[in-house]
């Protein structure tokens, strides 16, 4: 009846996951009880859960990403603590548990923290930057989000029901095959990643269509803001790479469920093939994350330097260059498999070539600052932290791309230090900068600067103290994923590293404090005009938060940095442009399709993990029925009357006219 599921699936013998799981369940039940008791449920259902508004979905993505960032961070704390004490000892985590922790840490951080945060910011910002009302397929967007949430939920269920994969964040066979991993851990991984991967692929389709087909009139490609360009490049990579992931995991699934032999040790299976395929997705995945991050830095550096982005065309070229070359480097993840001099050299060179594109970007950011008037707000501090830190992270990356160097550094703590160096300084700093930068646009008030700066300084110091010692132990020969060790020289470096984690805990506390303090003091931090930073792109032309339709009248773009030009003209002439003629606006109706779909996807995933076949069939029927109901809907849109639009836009114009009259701008 319940497949493999029985009471033995609950780890009663392991107090740590049990208590952690209990706390999470209690928190979730508490939140639910609060929502029901306060009568917030109808509001949540109507305004958020069924929303197809790209801004709302973006905010929900970011919320999911932040929660998972916290979960992944807790895993990181546990790992650092284990390695700090497991010298000549077993530490406090047995291998069965430690191996789950590092596997979950990687999976969650890449797929359920960084990806939702990147996609969330893309969701929120791209349609606004392009000067349009929504993405190409609003309901599909909601489906994408909820499928990602399903994946995150499945990973977290594995904490208390069964186990998570013990194979590392990429389940290399033959270790991940049934013979060596008979538990449900790898199955949790497979279905969680598979379901959320479909969500990501749909996002890719949605945003490529949006950016290629739906832009404000006159917004030619060479007038698109840099963040939108990088979002396009990232989504093109999603389109090309995620089907590879889906197919690879499907093959491993067939091995585990139906006795196939793609990657097994028997019947001619070849596990090396998995390594090639998974990294054919895995390496572009890195650029899926980091290209939008580069876009965020471009916007932030240009805005706070008070200059347009230097060498815009060069930046676009460098972005697309990285986008293409990122597909030609995957083999550098296993130089040590012995592919021979020619192959290793070719992939070593192709990998270092990426540094050309990145180098060009760094120099263009430098020259954006050159001749600027730089305001060191929190987003700009994150960008400065990135510029100074990322250069050395890139350096160690190119070092690893040199095959003979990789022959002594592969899989070492040096590698671990390197990829945290680039992902934390490259992606996480960008996401925190982006959240800081666009927060006023999303919620109508700025975040508290003091707490933001405290977060930055604790983060950057904590980052160096945590990860620099890892480079050292890597050079001292330490390999990754060790549950215990007995080499004295490593011990105290790993202890320093765990001190760094303590500093990062303070940073995380400051970040949470910043959100709370800013919420409490939202009235004094209020963004009245919708342009709190002296912005340059179209998202700053509308109110904060923007109306559901984004722009009362779609902008007629005639130049790069059109909004900036418009603003300068308004200041020169001390008056706004003529009031436009308002018309009624058609907007997509909310739809529970995404949520219901994800509900059934969760059931399907859970049933497949535990081999509960009848439940899987129920889930499939439910998901199909949801699709049919959606496909046969009668009224997909609703109208917002012209009067309402006019009223709201006049209020926006009044706020801006007030600035022109008084000269009281928000950014001085």
């Amino acid at each position, binding site marked *: 009846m319940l497949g*493999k599921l029985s009471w033995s*699936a609950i780890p009663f013998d392991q107090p740590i996951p049990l208590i952690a799981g209990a706390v999470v369940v209690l928190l979730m039940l508490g939140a639910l009880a609060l929502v029901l008791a306060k009568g917030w449920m109808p509001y949540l259902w109507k305004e958020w859960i069924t929303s197809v508004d790209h801004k709302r979905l973006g905010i929900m993505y970011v919320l999911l990403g932040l929660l998972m960032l916290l979960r992944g961070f807790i895993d990181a704390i546990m790992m650092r603590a284990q390695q700090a004490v497991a010298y000549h000892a077993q530490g406090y985590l047995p291998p069965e548990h430690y191996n789950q922790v590092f596997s979950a840490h990687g999976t969650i951080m890449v797929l359920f923290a960084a990806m939702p945060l990147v996609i969330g910011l893309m969701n929120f910002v791209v349609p606004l930057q392009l000067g349009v009302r929504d993405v190409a397929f609003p309901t599909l967007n909601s489906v994408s989000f909820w499928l990602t949430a399903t994946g995150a939920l499945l990973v977290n269920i594995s904490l208390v029901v069964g*186990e998570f994969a013990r194979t590392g964040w990429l389940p290399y066979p*033959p*270790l991940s095959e*049934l013979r060596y*991993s*008979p*538990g*449900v851990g790898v199955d949790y991984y497979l279905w969680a990643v598979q379901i959320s991967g479909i969500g990501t692929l749909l996002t890719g389709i949605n945003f490529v269509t949006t950016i290629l087909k739906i832009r404000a009139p006159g917004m030619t490609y060479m007038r698109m803001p840099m963040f939108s360009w990088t979002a396009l490049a990232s989504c093109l990579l999603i389109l090309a790479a995620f089907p590879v992931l889906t197919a690879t995991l499907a093959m491993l699934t067939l091995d585990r469920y139906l006795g196939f032999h793609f990657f097994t*040790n*028997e*019947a001619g299976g070849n596990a*090396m093939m998995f390594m090639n395929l998974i990294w054919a997705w895995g390496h572009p995945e890195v650029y899926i994350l980091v290209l939008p991050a580069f876009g965020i830095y471009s916007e932030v550096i240009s805005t706070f*330097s008070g*200059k347009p982005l230097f*060498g*815009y*065309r*060069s930046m676009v070229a460098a972005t697309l260059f990285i986008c293409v070359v990122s597909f030609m480097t995957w083999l550098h993840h296993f130089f*040590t*498999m*012995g592919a*021979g001099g020619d192959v290793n*050299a070719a992939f070593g*060179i192709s990998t*270092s070539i990426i*540094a*050309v594109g990145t180098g060009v970007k760094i120099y*263009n950011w*430098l*020259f954006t*600052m*050159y*001749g600027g*008037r*730089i305001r*060191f707000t929190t987003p700009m501090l994150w960008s400065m932290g990135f510029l*100074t830190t990322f*250069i*050395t992270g890139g*350096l160690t990356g190119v070092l690893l791309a*040199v*095959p*003979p*160097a990789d*022959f*002594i550094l*592969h*899989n*070492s703590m040096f590698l671990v230090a390197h990829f945290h160096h680039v992902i934390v300084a490259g992606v996480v700093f960008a996401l925190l900068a982006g959240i800081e930068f666009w927060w006023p646009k999303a919620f109508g008030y700025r975040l508290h600067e003091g707490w933001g700066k405290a977060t930055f300084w604790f983060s950057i*110091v904590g980052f*160096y103290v945590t990860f620099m010692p890892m480079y050292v132990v890597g050079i001292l*020969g330490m*390999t990754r994923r*060790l549950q*215990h060790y007995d*080499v004295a*020289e490593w011990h105290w470096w790993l202890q320093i590293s765990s001190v760094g984690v303590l500093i990062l805990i303070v940073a995380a506390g400051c970040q949470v404090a910043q959100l709370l303090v800013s919420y409490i003091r939202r009235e004094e931090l209020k963004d009245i005009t919708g342009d709190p930073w002296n912005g340059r792109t179209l998202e700053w032309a509308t109110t904060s938060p923007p109306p559901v339709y984004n722009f009362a009248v779609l902008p007629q773009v005639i130049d790069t940095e059109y909004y900036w030009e418009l603003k300068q003209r308004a200041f020169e002439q001390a008056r706004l442009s003529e009031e436009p003629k308002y018309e009624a606006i058609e907007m997509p109706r909310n739809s529970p399709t995404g949520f219901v779909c994800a509900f059934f996807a969760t059931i399907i995933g859970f049933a497949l993990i*535990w081999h509960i076949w009848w439940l899987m069939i129920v889930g499939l029927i439910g998901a199909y029925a949801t699709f049919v109901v959606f496909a046969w809907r009668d009224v997909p849109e609703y109208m917002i009357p012209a009067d309402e639009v006019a009223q709201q836009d006049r209020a926006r114009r009044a706020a801006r006219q007030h600035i022109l009259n008084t000269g009281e701008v928000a950014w001085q």
Partner: protein
Amino acid sequence: MIFIRRVGRRVLPCFCVLAAGLLPSLAQADSILEPVGPVGKGDALIMMDALVIMLAIVIPTMIATLGFAWWYRASNTRAVYRPDFTYSGKIELVVWSIPTLTIFFLGGVIWIGSHTLDPFTPIPSAAKPLEIEAVSFDWKWLFIYPEQNVATVNQLVVPVGRPLHFRITSASVFNVFFVPRLGSMIYAMNGMVSQLNLRADKPGKYLGFSAHFSGDGFPDMRFDPVAVPAAQFANWANGVKGAQLDRNALGQLLKQSRAVKPYAYRGVDPALFDAIAARRVAPGEGPEGGRGGAEGRNVMPHGGAP
């Protein structure tokens, strides 16, 4: 701006402390920067070359970043605000050229290094290499010395100064054979034979382990190699005592076991290594069951490939 001053005040001391601690500790035992053989020396040299080549552009870029940010702070009234300086063909030419030329140069280093230091390439030497066959199991290493007709578990003894030729495979999951101070590592993979050429030029005991996660017993896959003078090696090989390594003994090795104390075999089935590599024996057995996996094991019966 005050923040930049803070960068200097807070981050730089951290760097200095780290650097001061770094230098002596990197020369400690088991560091890849203290190689004891030609392969390790070659790897480390290429690594340091690449590092120096890149530092030549990284350091000026770092300085320029901090310098530009500091000088063009909004509060600096002496800095000239040039909001229209947004494109310069000359600068673009330079910023594309610098990384491109660096990568050209580095590409040459990569090409030459990848070929001369390819693990399959024999070390030029008058002496005939010592043949060693290495097999990774869950979770221990087996080393077969075919010429000496002995085999060891989790113990590697090698003669100083004589090239070593390893043939490496796995009886279960992936592992990586790695002795940091000897140099290059290479994968041990079921159904495949990788080769590795090394040489130890100094007697001593070194750190040796698996450098690819392979499951619960992975941290104990240690085989700390001992390099001894040639005569002592011959004595050791002659004096090894132990049971015969045949298919029965292999059956025991295929069972999962952790933290196995070193022991030896005297008398080795000469076809054993190739039989494992060609999958003519069943692969390692795997665990009894995982959480939620007590039933439904779906693997082929032992007996391996049809």
